[in-house]
């Protein structure tokens, strides 16, 4: 169909072909023009992050007078002020966020992949029904489930606790996402690979761990990166499930600390934001190669 349309496109008649050196010059010009445009677009994407970095090292007067420049007299005052807030909001927040992310992702990956392996071998009808139920998880807004989840956690005696928050992360949208990515990848694993292992008498769990998991490593990278970012950046669930008493994750701690300022102290804000964003940004930059491979392969299916 596409070929047909392409064939219908006739060359413009009488187009003059410039002499060779001139053509080369145009090409170079066009190439650098493209790169300049691309740089401009990326500048728009990174400017808030750039502003956070440079302003974290400026005094409030310097931020007001030259908001976009590099720090002329760099100061570490904002960073140390952020680290020395009453109650150690930043340090405790970073620690709590790390615990929540590591525990949640370390449980979601095996649960999601084993579950996907299990349903990928069910009959088509069963599989389709389960996938519809899991698609709902991607769609249902957390504002609808968070109030009842707190009630359920209260019944379990886990309200306002980190185990409760981690447990609630295991159901819902995060699990749906993991299952969708893994099922997509597992569809391409030939059935003979699994059958051969099973004739040798390997159990389902053993096949999953020794054969399937190594084959779906790009999916694990994608799921791991996305879930870590989402759980680290999650605001609503820790805000309401943990509450104000126990000590919060870094994302909620940042919000509390900034929204409690009577007079905005932008220097302190930028210092706090820089330290709060450091771990996810560094993690993404380190993992982005694997993550991109998984994303590209996944979308090809």
């Amino acid at each position: 169909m596409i070929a047909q349309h392409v064939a219908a496109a006739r060359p413009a008649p009488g187009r003059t072909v410039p002499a060779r050196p001139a053509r080369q010059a145009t090409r170079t010009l066009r190439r650098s023009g493209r790169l300049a445009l691309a740089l401009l677009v990326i500048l728009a994407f990174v400017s808030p992050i750039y502003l956070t970095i440079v302003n974290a090292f400026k005094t409030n007067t310097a931020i007001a007078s030259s908001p976009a420049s590099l720090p002329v007299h760099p100061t570490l005052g904002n960073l140390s002020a952020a680290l020395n807030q009453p109650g150690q909001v930043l340090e405790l927040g970073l620690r709590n966020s790390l615990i929540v992310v590591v525990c949640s992702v370390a449980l979601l990956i095996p649960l999601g992949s084993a579950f996907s392996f299990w349903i990928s071998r069910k009959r088509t009808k069963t599989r389709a029904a389960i996938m519809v139920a899991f698609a709902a998880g991607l769609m249902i807004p957390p504002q609808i489930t968070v109030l009842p989840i707190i009630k359920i956690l209260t019944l379990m005696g886990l309200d306002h606790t980190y185990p409760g928050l981690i447990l609630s992360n295991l159901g819902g949208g995060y699990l749906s996402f993991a299952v969708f990515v893994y099922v997509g990848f597992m569809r391409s694993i030939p059935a003979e690979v699994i059958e051969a292992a099973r004739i040798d008498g390997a159990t389902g769990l053993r096949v999953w761990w020794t054969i399937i998991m190594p084959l779906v490593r790009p999916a694990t990278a994608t799921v791991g990166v996305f879930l870590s970012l989402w759980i680290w950046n999650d605001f609503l669930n820790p805000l309401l499930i943990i509450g104000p008493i126990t000590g919060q994750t870094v994302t909620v701690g940042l919000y509390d600390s900034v929204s409690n300022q009577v007079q905005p102290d932008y220097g302190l804000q930028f210092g706090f934001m820089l330290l709060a964003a450091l771990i996810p940004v560094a993690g993404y930059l380190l993992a982005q190669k694997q993550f991109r491979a998984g994303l590209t392969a996944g979308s090809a299916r």
Partner: protein
Amino acid sequence: MKLLRSRLARLDTGLSAVAALTLVLYLVFLIVPVLLSLKTSFTNQNILFPNSSFVGLANYRQLLHDTQLRASIEFTLALAIAVTIVANAAGLGFAILLNRTSLSYRVLRTLAFLPQVISGIIVGFVWSWMLSPTGLVNHILTGTGLISQPVNWLGTPQLAQLSAAIVVSWVLSGFTTVVYLAALQNIPRELYDASSIDGANRRQQFRMITFRMVAPATTISVVICLITVLKLYDILTALTGGGPAYATRSIAMYIINVGFSNDAYGYASAIAMVLLALTAIIALSVTTVLRRREVDL
């Protein structure tokens, strides 16, 4: 055969147990909460009346006369439509621009995703500073003489709504760019080569090849943008806090306001059901329409 199957079933008990555990978690922390929310929406549950009673459709009747809710729904829907259009047009354009194999473009592609990496709270705070009277935007605009007086971009309802649309579009453009880049990299090179031989120009190639080949990615990208904006909470909370005069309060923020600040759980649950219905209807109908479009193109 039967014997073999039963032997295999025995081998699978461990795996089935893990799968069952996963299903239970999904039920307890997603399906059951939705049903509980539905049940609560028919009660007058409230922090003052822990022993709530069934009130039938009273909460739903109240919805019809809630002008604050109507304002929230109108704002959320307008934001969803505007942001989805802007982020998808920009994302496709940026993806085409960045779809080059050299190292500099690979670095730029990595950076394009950064708005997705930082939390919505940080995005909201940085932009609220940028748009404030003393912030960067006014600094540039007054510095270049485009405006004489600094403008509070978050100060009036209309400007705040416009600012919110720009900020959310900025965040989601990073996401759509990555989605469209993945789609572009899967288009066979030969299609372009063949069309060049046939004499197609750049614009024809875009219309006949690129636009059609990214149609499945468009479906995914549009639906995810819509769902994301419909449940948007953190960016708006940090950017505007829902103001001024509740002009930028999303439905999701209204639910939490009613449920937690006013402790009216029953009524908050009824609003939550409205959001759920809206999300489901929009996601399903847009998916159906766009899937059909993929075939037609």
